[in-house]
């Protein structure tokens, strides 16, 4: 880099970065544990475009959840940084919606009140979001369950409510940590189709952690394969299946090819 370039590099970099919704640079994470330091992530570099759907797959314990939590600002990296729309992540952000493996609904609140939790915690005016909440609940097939309590709903419905909660304040980025991992295969399939519909309608950027290869292929624009601990990016596979994708997509020969390839790489 020349001197002149170095002078203008900050402006230059900003212009360059604006193409990435999420930029992870040279990220390391080492945990301290009783048995000594555990290297969870090593040298992760990933750029994710706005509106892109990216899955993270890898064996359990490969650090995919850790990576997601670092991007969400819930865990600090040991080295490296994460930029969300060019802004370094130092703590959680309203721009990011999170969905966990469990629905994590508060059992003493009705579904509507659960969904409105972010509004309360962000000190926003509840009245301004009630209609939106009802609309989203309706979209997710939960109309009529607004005043039910979480334990009155099935696992799939609870998870849908959790997704509505994450969408309510309209985050640009959705981080999903094995959101359908606890659901049965049929419900899961249905949820995948619904998720794609929402994603396509909203243009959000989604990072989706899963250990299910078929799910990753079905949903994603790109699948990022992490190696076993310490997690490194082993391969990034571009999924060039036509959209909109339906259950029919899963019967395409290319779908099987992607699955086989990823399965072999996963080892």
């Amino acid at each position, binding site marked *: 880099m020349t001197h002149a370039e170095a002078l203008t590099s900050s402006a230059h970099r900003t212009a360059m970065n604006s193409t990435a919704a999420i930029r992870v640079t040279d990220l390391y994470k080492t945990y301290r544990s009783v048995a000594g330091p555990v290297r969870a992530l090593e040298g992760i570099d990933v750029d994710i475009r706005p509106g892109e759907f990216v899955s993270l797959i890898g064996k359990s314990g490969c650090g995919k959840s850790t990576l997601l939590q670092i991007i*969400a*600002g*819930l865990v600090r990296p040991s080295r490296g940084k994460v930029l969300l729309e060019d802004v370094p992540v130092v*703590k*959680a*952000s*309203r721009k*990011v919606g*999170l969905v*966990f493996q*469990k629905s*994590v609904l*508060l*059992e*003493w*609140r009705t579904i509507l*009140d659960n969904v409105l*939790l*972010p509004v*309360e*915690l*962000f000190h926003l005016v509840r009245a301004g979001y009630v209609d939106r909440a009802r609309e989203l609940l309706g979209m997710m097939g939960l109309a009529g369950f607004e005043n039910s*309590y979480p334990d009155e709903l099935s696992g799939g419905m609870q998870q849908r409510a959790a997704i509505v909660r994450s969408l309510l304040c309209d985050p640009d980025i959705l981080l999903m940590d094995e959101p359908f991992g606890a659901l049965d295969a049929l419900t899961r399939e249905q949820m995948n189709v619904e998720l794609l519909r929402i994603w396509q309608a909203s243009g959000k950027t989604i990072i989706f952690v899963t250990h299910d290869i078929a799910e990753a292929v079905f949903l994603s624009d790109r699948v990022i394969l992490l190696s076993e601990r310490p997690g490194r990016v082993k391969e990034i596979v571009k999924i060039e299946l036509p959209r909109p994708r339906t259950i029919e997509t899963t019967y395409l020969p290319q779908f099987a090819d992607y699955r086989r390839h990823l399965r072999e790489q996963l080892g």
Partner: protein
Amino acid sequence: MNESVAREVPAPPSEVEDEFIETLEDDEQNGRRRIALELTLTAAVIVVSLALWSFLASLTSPLVLPAPGRVGEVIVDITKNGSVFKHIETTTLEIILGFILGSAIGLGAGIALAWSPLLRRLASPYLVASQAVPKLALAPMFTLWLGYGIASKVVIAALIAFFPLLENTVVGLCAVESEKLMLFKSLLANEIQTFTKLRLPHARPYIFAGLRMAMLFATVGAIVGEYVGSDVGLGAMIIVSDGTMNTTLMFAVLIILTALGILLYKLVQWMEMLFQRGGVVARLRRTR
């Protein structure tokens, strides 16, 4: 044509529905049968115990075991001439004040300890010591310090009532699942929001379990306080009836005391129902 189609199409679901309604009716019938059975059994237990009591009483002197009929008469007497009411009043006041004082300390200290792990480590040896001491053995000391009035009884009641609530409050506030804390962190919740919207509602059932215990303990504390030194209160009445060999009166007071204890326990349960999900408090909060 249309009509016939309309009539034909819903046929299968309506059959299913009928079956469903039938099972519902079965359930309802079973429920009614179960309630009837429970009532019969409860009545039977009471009748058998009273019969057994009468039988045993007929074998011994009324000084040892008075007959249930006699005890009932005494209860009616002391209620009619009103002599028992000032004792009930005093004891109830002691229990309630002891419960309120003990609960305030238990809840306040529980919240403080849950908030600060350092405080928890510092205070826990003293707390354990305060419970390892046989507290009821301290009753004479409090009577010595605070006199024969209700103050000594309130303090004894509070002293033994606060601990179960404190323990339950700490456990309830700290036992929040890590996923929920993570959710709140991701939603940028501050300490106060995490406390009022997560920890406290999560601890609610624990706190009410502690309050129920506290009420029972406060009852024991007040009575023991009265045993040590008092001239009013149901505990004092028991001591007096013991001194005058009036066993029938003692039994009457014990029954009144039991009824009072149950009533106060129920009071806490009713309070809990107000705070339950979908309860009055939750509904008020929602309309606000």
